């Protein structure tokens, strides 16, 4: 067992009540597994960063046979004068991105097997659950051990995730498996989308990253609207279900002021009216499915519901489906972008529905591959070419749900207005047929 470096700065991070990654790294470094020295030298490298306030990792090219991406290569830049590594066992410290089960469900056996498969094949033993794209990050492999570690995980049933200009690992919320707000089989939608485009994940050939994320309702626990090029959000289009008896019991218990201040007046479209008899009337046509009233009332239900009953105070409707919002991303290069509504509603029940969303995603990826500039995200491409060109490119019709307001600039050529108006009426007729 090798002696640990002196790490006075990192030692400070072992104090305090929150679990410490430094304690974990030290445990790995003090062990006898093959990757222990790598963990020790990573600690040495990190302590150097804490002293000099500089990072010491550079990228490169490391992959596994058959794939072009999925490994994050890191080579140590801290070198002695003769060019040898200052922390030789951490000369290479690559990360394998492994796709987790949708919804991030694990068994204890799976967790243990993953730990064993990683360290028994020479990995450092440091695992992030999970990275910002959702991957299981096996942190600490050399070029030599990368292939062996991957083979073992791959034989076990796990696959590499995406890195670079590729379809990335996706994320879906806990949704249907444990949430009453769920409007769709989130985990099935995610697997449909990601698994249909594995070639574009494993062999990066897109202009830049392409992310799918799925949230079961507009609470958007997966941050789809700001982090996914292709965000799927569950919703419904019929009425909120109201249990008036429970609602009245809640008003009687919590008081009208509480209900007005915390529920009805927080409705963003003023669609709720608290009646004189303490019942509630909801203008469902104006409900925008924001989730607030459901979020407040669901945790109160248990106080008023009779044993054996399962109808809560308020519940989502029955005519469920998804909306698709495209083009969300963070800063680079033109600044933050929210995704924009591209499909206001789509049923997601049958095999045909799932095929339809897969086809649409295929259209989007093809259009993106052909039309985006290098290092340009979907949202930036849409901003550059205009959303109308994008919609025409992927074969979708315009819809007033796509805008916050109609245009304010009159600098536009409108000589095909009549044809476009005809299209609107034809599409409406087709939709209602």
């Amino acid at each position, binding site marked *: 067992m090798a002696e640990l470096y002196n790490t006075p700065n990192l030692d400070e991070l072992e104090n305090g009540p929150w679990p410490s990654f430094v304690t974990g790294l030290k445990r790995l470094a003090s062990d006898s597994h093959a990757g222990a020295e790598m963990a020790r030298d990573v600690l040495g490298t990190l302590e150097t960063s804490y002293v000099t306030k500089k990072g010491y990792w550079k990228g490169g090219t490391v992959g596994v046979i058959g794939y072009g991406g999925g490994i994050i290569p890191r080579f140590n830049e801290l070198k002695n004068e003769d060019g040898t590594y200052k922390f030789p066992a951490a000369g290479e410290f690559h990360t394998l991105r492994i796709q987790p089960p949708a919804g*991030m469900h694990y068994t204890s056996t799976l967790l243990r097997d993953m730990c064993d498969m990683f360290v028994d094949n020479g990995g450092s033993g440091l695992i992030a659950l999970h990275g*910002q794209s959702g991957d299981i990050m096996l942190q600490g492999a050399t070029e030599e051990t990368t292939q062996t570690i991957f083979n073992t995980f791959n034989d076990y049933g796990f*696959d590499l995730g995406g890195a670079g200009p590729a379809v990335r690992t996706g994320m879906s919320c806990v949704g249907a498996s444990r949430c009453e707000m769920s409007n769709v089989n989130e985990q099935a939608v995610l697997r449909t989308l990601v698994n249909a485009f594995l070639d574009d994940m494993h062999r990066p050939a897109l202009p830049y990253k392409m992310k799918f994320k799925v949230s079961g309702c507009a609470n958007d626990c997966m941050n789809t609207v700001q982090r996914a090029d292709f965000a799927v959000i569950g919703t419904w289009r019929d009425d909120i279900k109201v249990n008036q008896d429970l609602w009245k019991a809640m008003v009687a218990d919590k008081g009208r002021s509480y209900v007005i201040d915390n529920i009805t007046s927080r409705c963003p479209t003023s669609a709720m009216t608290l009646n004189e008899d303490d019942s509630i009337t909801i203008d469902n046509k104006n409900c925008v499915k924001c989730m607030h009233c459901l979020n407040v009332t669901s945790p109160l239900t248990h106080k008023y519901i009779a044993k054996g009953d399962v109808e809560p105070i308020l519940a989502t409707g029955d005519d469920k489906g998804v909306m698709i919002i495209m083009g969300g991303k963070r800063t*680079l290069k033109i600044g933050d972008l929210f995704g924009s509504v591209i499909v206001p509603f789509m049923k997601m029940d049958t095999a045909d529905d799932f095929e339809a969303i897969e086809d649409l995603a295929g259209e989007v990826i093809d259009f993106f591959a052909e039309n985006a500039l290098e290092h340009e995200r979907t949202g930036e491409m849409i901003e550059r070419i205009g959303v109308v060109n994008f919609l025409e490119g992927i074969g979708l019709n315009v819809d007033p749900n796509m805008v916050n307001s109609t245009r304010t600039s009159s600098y536009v050529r409108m000589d095909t207005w009549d044809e476009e108006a005809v299209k609107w009426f034809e599409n409406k007729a087709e939709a209602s047929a």
Partner: protein
Amino acid sequence: MAEAPRMPIESGCPDPIQYMHPTMRRNYGQWAYHDRPRPGVLHHTSKNNEEVWTVRCGTARQMDVYTIRKLADIADEFADGFVRFTMRSNVEYMVADGAKVEPLIAALTEAGFPVGGTGPSVTMISHTQGWLHCDIPGTDASGIVKSLMDELHEEFTREEMPNRVHMTTSCCQINCGGQGDIALNIQHTKPPKINHDLVANVCERPTVVARCPVAAIRPAMVNGKPTLEVDEKKCICCGACFPPCPPMQINDPEHSKIALWIGGKNSNARSKPSFHKLVASNLPNNPPRWPEVGAVVKNILSVYKDDARDWERMGEWVDRIGWPSFFEKTGLPFTKFHINDWKGARHELNSSAHIRF
């Protein structure tokens, strides 16, 4: 002849049903309502009248295999061998028997995993890789997060905030950490320092020129060698040139500072999703504990906790009281840097007579 290499099995994203707690599997899509018996615990009831209790605990995110095996042992002892992770690296144990909740909490606490992060609490900070593994980090991520979560530990284990507080940390302005009610991102304040001897050998120059969002980079010749130069008046110090061209060093141990942003929200509840906005900057990048950052974060949280109404997320609170009040209540300085001069900035200016006196 050499043996043919093993080709990968492109199995993609695994089916979670096989790893899901049986109560969740049986009631998939059938949940009716939930309540929160105490901070860190969710109790869901299904339309089949089955119940499941979820106990959530925090982790360090970057975990060693011993920690993960410990989590697995606890799952075996109390939760039928099942766990799941949240996107903020918390662990959730599901139990179908309410009597197991308290012993499970005791075991997690004993093992050093704080129980909390549900409801109106400050939950685990989602973050990037920082000095541990990133190739362009201006600061660490795991270390700042550990320091802050030590200080906010009680806000994790309690539910005393007006609404949930999601925090994020990013080790550069590319901001892989994402949007947050409070986001801590390092801000480079000086243009890149160029090593002209290396540029021609290392960088694909047109790619670097194209990457710059303000067209501040142009080809140049220095000492007879092709290289790049930066118009420092135009440069916004974003660091986008550094990944494709490491000889354009952006990280600066002294001049890279930490900036705080607030009011980011992904949820559509009540108000539409919002981006986080700048509130403080020029905080020193001061490992190993970043005390100056912790002080500003705690100040903002304490003012929000006192002043916001129930259910108001941080951005919604500021929208109600107005930005002048925010700066007054927090004592933070308002500077010219708070006023956006980037693309589309006019939309962020006040064009109304709505002023509070």
